[in-house]
């Protein structure tokens, strides 16, 4: 549990942000320059606020009214930096144990063997950081932060400097971390794919301010936040269960409350829960069930509302028996079809519009 409520001014940049997180992964999302890294630095004590309050698990790290300002080494905040920051003169083993030395008497979050197994770094222990790949460095950095027994783990765009295969590799390890280690994680990112794949809740930031916080699915469907989530990237998030894998066609059948989706190249196993991001621009609307169609996913639902947007296109919010879905269509189509709240419609989603990056473990 992290509570953050801080005002701070660094040079010409002003930050005035407040939010609280529960367990699991909280994504700090926003464009570069929104103040995400500044928030992490404030939590870790590497930047100094003007006023406010920061508490972790009821422990005050900073409180301007009470005059509390713990130094970084007393905060018990695990920080994984964008560029790893492994100590170059120490071996991987000594990097991992560096923080452990100071915190070994406290409650162990994880054991050394568990960390090396979880992150797959057991074979690297005697190497030096200069000889590691980018992905290996980040895994060691995560392990090092964990072994210092932190009460919260901060990840600052750990994938930013990695190529696509390495990104997938680290994402897999962060997912395991989230599921196997009971520690709240704050994950800074400007990639919606990562956020959707990893996070339970989301803090949306812009220009040093918090625009909204909440459940990722709920945030994604909030139309007023769309400009900040990226005009072409916004959409709904659906949690579904893998009900079938057809090896011949390469399609997986994913079932959820509102029906079923057929999607290619899903790596999850039968019965596993996955999270799928469906971009609004990939969803079409028909008022009668179409036939003779290449589109594989046709889902029945009703119109909830239409966003009163300026411009040539607008967002239609659909309800698929309890599951929210967003469709981005032209204003002209909306008026020609006569879309209005309560109208029963069919949502059409091309299977190939959902790529591997849009699917993650729930």
């Amino acid at each position, binding site marked *: 549990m992290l509570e953050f409520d801080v005002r701070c001014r660094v040079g010409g940049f002003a930050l005035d942000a407040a939010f609280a997180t529960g367990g699991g992964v909280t994504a700090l999302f926003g464009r570069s320059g929104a103040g995400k890294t500044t928030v992490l630095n404030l939590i*870790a*004590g*590497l930047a100094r606020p003007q006023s406010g309050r920061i508490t972790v698990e009821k422990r005050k790290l900073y409180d301007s009214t009470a005059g509390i300002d713990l*130094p*970084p*080494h*007393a*905060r*018990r*905040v*695990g*920080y994984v*930096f964008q*560029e790893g*920051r*492994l*100590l*170059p*003169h120490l071996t991987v083993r000594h990097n991992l144990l*560096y*923080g452990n*030395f*100071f*915190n070994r008497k406290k409650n162990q979050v994880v054991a050394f063997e568990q960390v090396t197994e979880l992150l797959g770094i057991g074979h690297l222990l005697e*190497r*030096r*950081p*200069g*000889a590691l790949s980018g992905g290996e460095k980040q895994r060691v950095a995560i392990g*090092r*932060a964990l072994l*210092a027994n932190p009460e919260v783990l901060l990840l600052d765009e750990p994938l930013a400097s990695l190529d696509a295969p390495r990104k997938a590799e680290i994402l897999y390890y962060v997912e395991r971390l989230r599921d196997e280690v009971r520690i709240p994680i704050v994950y800074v990112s400007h990639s919606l794919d990562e956020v959707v794949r990893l996070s339970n809740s989301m803090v949306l930031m812009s220009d040093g301010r918090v625009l909204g916080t909440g459940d990722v699915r709920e945030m994604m469907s909030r139309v007023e936040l769309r400009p900040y989530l990226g005009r072409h990237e916004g959409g709904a998030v659906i949690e579904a269960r893998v009900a079938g894998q057809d090896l011949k066609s390469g399609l997986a059948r994913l079932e959820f409350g509102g029906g079923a989706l057929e999607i290619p190249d899903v790596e999850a196993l039968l019965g596993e829960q996955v999270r799928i991001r469906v971009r609004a621009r990939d969803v079409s609307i028909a008022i009668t069930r179409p036939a003779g169609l290449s589109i594989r996913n046709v889902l029945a639902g009703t119109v909830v509302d239409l966003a009163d947007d300026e411009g040539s296109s607008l967002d239609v919010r659909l309800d698929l028996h309890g599951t929210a879905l967003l469709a981005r269509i032209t204003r002209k189509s909306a008026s020609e079809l006569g879309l209005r709240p309560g109208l029963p419609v069919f949502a059409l989603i091309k299977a190939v519009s959902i790529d591997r990056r849009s699917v993650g473990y729930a």
Partner: protein
Amino acid sequence: MWSLSPAETTALLLSLKVAFWSVAASLPVAVALAWILSRLSFPGKSLLDAVVHLPLVLPPVVVGYFLLLAFGRRGAIGAFLEETLGITFIFRWTGAALACAVMGLPLLVRAVRQSLDAVDRGLEAAAATLGAPPLWVFATVTLPLILPGILTGMLLSFARSLGEFGATITFVSNIPGETQTLPLAIYAFTQVPGGDGQALRLCILSIVLSLAALMASEVLVRRATVRAAGRDA
């Protein structure tokens, strides 16, 4: 021909002793000064910087003369040290070491400061978030990373001490066995008729000594650099 006479051995050993202690005594001071100049900003910083560098540009005789004024029997610091601690610098080998330390300090401070400026402060911040208090961070992160700079500075200041002449002869005079280091012995031989051969022998000795120091430090610096860069040795 190739064996050293007792007088030559005495001068050589004295030179090494003086150089060693001048480097050893000035190292902590130099690291502290370098840290202050690299990390802090305060009014008068450029003045401190200039004062540290003065011995580099002043005639060594001037430094020696000021040492004589300050650390002589009747000098303010000299009198105080003699009364309270019983330490005498004037006309002693300790005085020669002090003169060498002052003359070598700018070289040592410069080398250490340059590597301090080059240290990634992010690494120190990372160590702090892992629970390491500031002094511990300095000892386990900063020091190992600036080790190449420290070794370079130590070599420069060591070599400077071996060659120091003006400040030493002004401050502690030219006393065989006490303050007569190699350069002073060479000077003494050139002042007596027929001393040329002796002077030349000591000159060759000086060259061999300096070359050995250079090569030894080169090896050490290379090793420390590999370590600090994080490559597998």
